[in-house]
C-alpha cells in the first residue's frame, strides 16, 4: 500500500520544472510527508497533544477548581492562582481545598458551587493533603495510581510530558544552531580552520558532563534552562560532522563556484546557497536528537542530577518505579509514556527521512 503511494508521490515529484526554488522543494517534501500516513499521523498527534498539554494545568489536570461561584461572584483559580481557604470561608491555613469545598457546599445545598478540573488531582499534592495515600493502585480516582509519597502518577506523567518534549526540542534547537553553523564553517573553509576545530571538538567531547553538573548544582539550583544549556554544550558536536561533510561536498559544486565568481560574500554563500541544499541531515536527524535529549534528561533525573524536586519528571518517576518494582503501575506508566512518545517521534523521523530522500524507492521487480 505504502509502496503505491510512494510511486504516486514520485510522479508528483518528477513533474514540476527544475527552476523551482527551494521553498517549493520543501513544499513537495511536505506533500510527500503527508502521504506517509504513519509518520504524518504521529506528527499530528504529537504536535496537537504537545500544544494542548500546555493548557492542561488550566483546564484539565489541577487540584484547583476551574470555576468557583461564591456569593454571587465567579472565580477562576486555575488561571488566577492562589486563593486562601479563608477567602471562601474555609477553615484551612493555606490554599483552599476545592474538593472539600465542593463537598461542603453540596452537603449544605448552598448557592455557591465549584466546578473542579476534569482530573482533580494535581502533580504536587501528596500524602500531606487529606485523603491521599501512597502506592494506591490505578482506579477511577487515580487513573494510574499514586507514587511513593501519594502523588498522582497520571497528572505527573502528563505534566512531565510537556517538560520532556520541551526539553528535547530546546536542546536540539540550541545544539543545532551551534552545530550547524560551526559544521558549515568547517566544511566551507576547510584547511587549518577545519583542522583546529576538529581537534577542539575531539577535546570538548571528553568533557565530563556529570562533573560539570555537580559543580554547577553545588553553586546554584539547576533549572530547566540551565540544564538545557549544559546538555546542549555537549550535544552539538554530532551535527557538525554531518554539516561538515555536506559542505565539503556542496562547495565543490558548480553553483557555489558561480556564486563565488559573482562576488557573493562567504556568509551569503553559506546561508543562502549551500545551507538550503544541506538541510537533509538537519531535518532528518531532528526527531532523533529530540529523542536523545529526552533520554538524557531522563538519565540525569534518574541519577539525581536533573530537575529539582518536586518537578514532575519522567526520570524521577522511572527511578522511583524501579525502586518499588513490585508496584507495577509505577514502573509501567513512565516507561509506557516514554515508549509511546519516543515511538511517535521515531515514526515522524522515519517519515521525514523518507520524504527528504531524493531517490524514489523503485525496485524494478
Amino acid at each position, binding site marked *: 500500500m505504502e509502496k503505491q503511494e510512494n510511486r504516486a508521490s514520485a510522479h508528483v515529484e518528477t513533474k514540476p520544472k527544475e527552476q523551482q526554488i527551494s521553498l517549493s522543494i520543501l513544499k513537495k517534501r511536505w506533500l510527500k510527508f503527508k502521504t506517509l500516513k504513519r509518520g504524518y499521523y504521529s506528527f499530528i498527534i504529537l504536535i496537537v497533544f504537545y500544544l494542548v498539554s500546555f493548557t492542561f494545568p488550566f483546564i484539565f489536570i489541577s487540584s484547583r477548581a476551574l470555576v468557583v461561584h461564591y456569593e454571587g461572584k465567579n472565580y477562576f483559580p486555575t488561571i488566577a*492562582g*492562589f486563593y*486562601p481557604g479563608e477567602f471562601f470561608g474555609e477553615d484551612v*491555613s*493555606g*490554599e483552599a481545598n476545592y474538593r472539600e469545598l465542593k463537598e461542603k457546599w453540596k452537603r449544605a445545598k448552598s448557592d455557591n458551587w465549584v466546578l473542579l478540573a476534569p482530573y482533580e488531582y494535581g502533580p*504536587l*499534592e*501528596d*500524602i*500531606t*493533603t487529606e485523603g*491521599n*495515600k*501512597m*502506592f494506591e493502585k490505578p482506579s477511577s480516582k487515580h487513573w494510574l495510581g499514586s507514587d*511513593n*509519597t*501519594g502523588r498522582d502518577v497520571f497528572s505527573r506523567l502528563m505534566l512531565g510530558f510537556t517538560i520532556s518534549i520541551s526539553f528535547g526540542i530546546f536542546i536540539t534547537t540550541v545544539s543545532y544552531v551551534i552545530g550547524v553553523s560551526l559544521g558549515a564553517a568547517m566544511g566551507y573553509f576547510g584547511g587549518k580552520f577545519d583542522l583546529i576545530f576538529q581537534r577542539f571538538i575531539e577535546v570538548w567531547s571528553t568533557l565530563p558532563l556529570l562533573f560539570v553538573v*555537580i559543580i554547577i*548544582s*553545588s553553586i546554584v*539550583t*539547576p533549572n530547566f534552562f540551565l540544564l538545557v544549556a549544559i546538555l546542549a554544550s555537549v550535544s552539538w558536536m554530532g551535527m557538525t560532522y554531518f554539516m561538515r561533510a555536506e559542505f565539503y561536498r556542496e562547495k565543490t559544486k558548480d553553483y557555489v563556484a558561480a556564486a563565488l565568481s559573482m562576488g557573493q560574500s562567504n556568509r551569503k554563500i553559506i546561508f543562502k546557497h549551500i545551507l538550503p541544499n544541506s538541510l537533509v541531515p538537519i531535518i532528518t536527524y531532528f526527531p532523533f536528537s529530540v529523542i536523545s535529549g529526552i533520554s538524557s534528561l531522563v538519565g540525569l533525573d534518574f*541519577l*539525581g*542530577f*536533573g530537575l*529539582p*524536586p*518536586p518537578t514532575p519528571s519522567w526520570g*524521577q518517576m522511572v*527511578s*522511583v518505579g*524501579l*525502586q*518499588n*518494582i*513490585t508496584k507495577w503501575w509505577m514502573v509501567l506508566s513512565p516507561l509506557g509514556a516514554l515508549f509511546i512518545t519516543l515511538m511517535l517521534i521515531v515514526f515522524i523521523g522515519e517519515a521525514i527521512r523518507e520524504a527528504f530522500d531524493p531517490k524514489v524507492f523503485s525496485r524494478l521487480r
Partner: protein
Amino acid sequence: MKKRYITVVMFLMCVALWTISGCGTQTEQNDSTTDQLNKEGTESKAPTTRSLVVRTAETVAPEDRETAPEDGGYGFEEIFEDLGFTTYVVPDSELIFFGDPKAEKGGQITRIMSRFPATLRIEGQHANYVENYMFGGMIYEGLIETHPVTLEFIPSLASHWKISEDKMQFWFRINPDARWSDGKPVVADDVVATWKLHMDETILSPSDQLVYGKLELPVAESKYIVSVKCKELNWRNFLYFGGMYIYPHHYLKDLTGTDYLSDYQFKMLPGTGPYTMLEKDIKIQVSYAVTRRLDYWNADDPLMKYAYNFDKVKFVVVKDNDMLEFEKFKKGEQDFFYVKKAERWVEGTNFEAVEKGWVKKRNIFTQKPSTKYGYAFNMRKPPFDDKRLRDAFSYLINRDQMNEELFFNLFEPQNSLYAGTVYENKENEQIEFNPKKAMELLAEIGWKERNSDGWLINDEGETLRLDIAIPKAIDYRVTPVQQMLREYGIDFQIKYVDTNARWKLMMDRSFSIAFEHWGGLTFPNPETSYHSRLADEDNNNNLYGFKNARVDELCALYDVEFNQGRRIKIIQEIDKIITDNRSSFMTFYRPTDWLLFWDRYSYPEYMVSRYLNGGIEDWSVLKYWWFDAEKAQKLEDAMAKGESLPQGELDVMYWRNYVQNLEQKASEAESK
C-alpha cells in the same frame, strides 16, 4: 596485496581483544606460597556441611613457666589484688549474655555487603568503614572489651588491669595463654608496636593520631605487663587504649606506615581472634570470607565458648543495588536481611517463604544508640539565627501525619538527641504539630501577609524562601515537608547534590538548613558537635554554630567523670539544653530492628544484643547465632514438599522486658 595486509591487521586486533577479554583461563590467582600457614583442618561438628575450619599455626608456643607471677606470668591470678589489679569475673547468671550453651559449632552464614572494602586492613587509610570493623572484630582482639549488657570492662587479651589513683595511668596484664594465629605468644611489645603503628602519620589516618595521641608511648614493663600514661584526664582514654586491636610486633617491627599500607592492602596480619581470613577466600570486588580457627587460644573461656559458632562467615558484594540484595535474600543466596525501610517491612515481606514460615520475620526491641535524623539549622546567619523561626519550622511539620502515611506508624517522633536510650531526657519538650503557634511566631518575626502566589511576605515584600540540598535517596522524606511548608506559605526549595558536595556545603557552612543524619554512639560525645570553640570554625561537626557556656562546662565535667550513672545525668542535662535550643529539628527514630532470616539458625533468647555491639547491627547474628542442622533439615523438607512451618512470635521483647524489670527492681529498692 593490500587487502591481505588489512585482513591480517584485523585478525591481530581480534586476537588482541580475545586475550585481553580474559576468555582464557587466566585469573588473578593468589600466590599459594604465601598461604603456607593456612592448613586445612579436619575436624567438623556439622555433618551437613563440608569441613571448613582451619588450623593456622604449625606449632604453638609452649606455656611460659619462666616469667615470674609478679611480672604477669602464671601465678599472677593469685596475687593480682595485692598488686592493685582488678578483673571482671562474670557471674553465672550473666553467662547467657555471652552466648547460648546450646550453641553448636559449624555451618556457614552468608551476608551481602554493598561495597567491597578498599582494603582488608582495619587501620590506616580507607579502613574506617563498617565492613572493616565487621571482619576485623572477628580476627583481632583488644586488651579489654565491654560487657554486652552492663557495658562494664571485661577481659579479652588482658586478663587483669589497673587504673592509677589519679586515673592518669593504666596497666594491663596480658593473658599468658594468648597466642597469635601463627602460634607465637602475645606479649607487651605487641601492644607497644600497635600503638606506634597508629601514631605513624604515614598510615594516612589522621584520626588515629588524634585518638591515640591522647596517650603517651606505652611501656612494656615486663613480658606481659604493659602500662600507658594519659596526657589529659578523660575516662575515654581507657576505652580507646583497651579497645585497640592488637597486632603482632614480630610482623610490625620493621614496617613503616607506608610499608604497612602497601604490604597489607589485601593481606591479613596474624590475629588472635577466633577467625582468620584465608587468601583463597579473598576474591577482590566479589566476595570475602572468614574461617573459624581450630587453634583459637581462648576457645574454652566461658565468655567465648558459645560465641562465634559459624565455621565460615561469608561476605558477598552487591554494589549500590538494594533491590538486588533483597532479591538475593529471597532466593536464598543471603541468609539474613535487616530491613531498613518501613514500606518494605510492611508490604515487601509477604512473599511465599515468609508466609510459609521458611523465612522468619522478627521485630526486635533493642537499646542501641539512636541515630539523629532531621534538619540542621545554621544559626550563624539569617534567617535561622532567630529561634522563633526554628520553632515555627518545627511546629509546622506534621510528623504524625508523615509517620502514619509514609511509615505505617512504625517510627517514633524524635525529641531527644538520645531518644530511646538511657541518655534521653524525658523532660524535653515533646514537639507537636501546631500551625497556629507557628504562624503567630512567624507573624512576630514579620512574616504576616501572603502574596498572590500564596507565599508569606514581610514588610519589604520579600518572600520567605528556604533552600536545602539533599541526596536524591531521601527525597521522599523531604518533598512532603516541602508540601506542608507550602501550605503555610513557606517556599522550601530542594536541590539534589551528591554526598561529597553536600558534605562540603555543610562544612563550609554555606547552607541555611541542611538534612543531617548521624549514627549514634554507645558512649555519647556531644562535645564534637556542640562545643562553643567549634562554632565559629569550619570543617567540624558543629554545623549549627551552637554556643552555650553551660554545655561547654558540662562537656568538661563529662570527660573526667568516671561514673557511668553520673555521666548519664550530665548527658541528660546537655540533651535538654541542646534540644530546647532547637539547633536542629529531629524527625523520627526507629525503636526496633527488623530482621528476616532463613529458618536454619538457632539463637539465644534475646536474639540480638542489647546495645549496638561494635557499632554494627549484624554483629549479634554473626557472634551469637549458630547453624542448627535439625532446623535446616526441616526447612529443606518443608520446602521440598511445599509445607508450612510455624512463623512464631513477631515481636522480640527481651530487652524491653529486661529494662522494665531492672526499673521495677530499682523502684522497689528505693521504696524499701
